């Protein structure tokens, strides 16, 4: 048995200080991100004891149906009233609900590929048209073997009426839509992200480009 031979690439000279600026490329977080990125309070988008606090259990599965145990999940979402504490929100900067809500979580998977996020259910969001976006959580998936993050969205199972008009879900097939909806469990929701399936009607989770 021989190992895969080394690839050979041409080495191109270049210097970002003398050529026109462009966006810096993404690279994988690699296998050792646990050295630099975990925070003690990373999984807590909402602090312990916050009103309405729930736990999202997000499991990431690879193309061989094995859990990705070295995955890092990040989430970003509106607060319980559908607000952001951010200068680019045209509705203005507000104190978030519940108190101490951060909107962001960063969580490491365990050996089963499951990362926990402590948060609250977000409110619906206005858009530039009449329709609202249904309550959702933006999810970034980082791992060794992913040269860029994968971006997807988690929706909540009880919001069926809102899902029917949500502009993002409306752009998907019924089958794709169902894959973005989490399952209600004790204390929160669980959701499985399937990174890969060659079958177009298979289990692969819809991923987004921004």
């Amino acid at each position, binding site marked *: 048995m021989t190992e895969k031979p080394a690839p050979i690439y041409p080495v*191109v000279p270049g210097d*970002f200080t003398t050529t026109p600026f462009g966006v810096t490329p993404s690279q994988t977080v690699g296998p050792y991100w646990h*050295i630099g990125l975990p925070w003690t309070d990373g999984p807590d988008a909402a602090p312990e004891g916050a009103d309405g606090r729930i736990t999202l259990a997000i499991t990431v599965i690879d193309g061989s149906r094995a859990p990705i145990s070295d995955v890092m999940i990040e989430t970003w979402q509106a607060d319980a009233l559908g607000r952001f504490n951010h200068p680019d929100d045209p509705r203005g900067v507000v104190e978030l609900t519940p108190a101490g809500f951060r909107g962001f979580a960063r969580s490491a998977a365990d050996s089963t590929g499951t990362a926990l996020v402590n948060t609250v259910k977000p409110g619906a969001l206005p858009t530039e048209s009449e329709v609202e976006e249904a309550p959702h959580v933006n999810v970034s998936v980082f791992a060794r073997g992913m040269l860029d993050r994968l971006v997807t969205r988690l929706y909540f199972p009880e919001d069926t009426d809102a899902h029917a008009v949500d502009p993002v879900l409306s752009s998907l097939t019924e089958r794709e839509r169902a894959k973005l909806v989490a399952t209600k469990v004790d204390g929160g929701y669980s959701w499985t992200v399937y990174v890969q399936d060659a079958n177009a009607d298979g289990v692969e989770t819809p991923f987004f480009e921004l």
Partner: protein
Amino acid sequence: MLHLPPRYQRPTGVNAPADFADYKTTSLRHPKQPLKLLPQRLTELTGPVFGEDRVGAGENDLTIANGGEAQGQRIVVHGRVLDGDGKPVPHTLLEVWQANAGGRYRHTGDNWPAPLDPFFNGLGRCVTDANGHYSFTTVKPGAYPWMNHDNAWRPAHIHFSLFGTAFTQRLVTQMYFPDDPMFFQDPIYNAVPEEARHRMVSVFDYDATVPNWALGFRFDIVLRGRNASVFENEEDHDD
């Protein structure tokens, strides 16, 4: 109804393909179905804003840890964080992690026979100033072997993580060193389109060298910018 701020432009010719066969681990970890377009609305145009509150005392100096000084070539790494419109990104958090001077990570998954350094942990944090400038002190990381292909070595690199000001701008990348002899066989570096690879390579910066103390390297980082057509009217959006 809302009037949303300008969207961020999707860069082209910058990012690696999700499926890059030379980098073995991509094979089971890339989607096979086409990505769907996610129009940028409130959740995408906002993002977590982290600054000094996430940085502890001394976290911008990786060379002092556990009561001693790390082994290796001491270096100052500095540069600016800009958006694609050339504007500085001020007061934004950078998180970095890296191998020690011998190419060994302080991580349970790294067991190759290079020594751990008792005085090097390999993580740092810093925040850009009002002009988007950052700086930290560390030691130059060593190259290290990995199992991707026959006699595979990663070029020396420092991992960088940045938030920018919007979910859309989030970036995790790696900074390399000029003229690294390992570039020719590294699929992670070469997965990026050829014309964009040099943006990940720092430059030796003699002016940033601290006499009798540390060498200097400069690494500027560019996050996604707003749409170019909107940029022309930027002054109208200041209110």
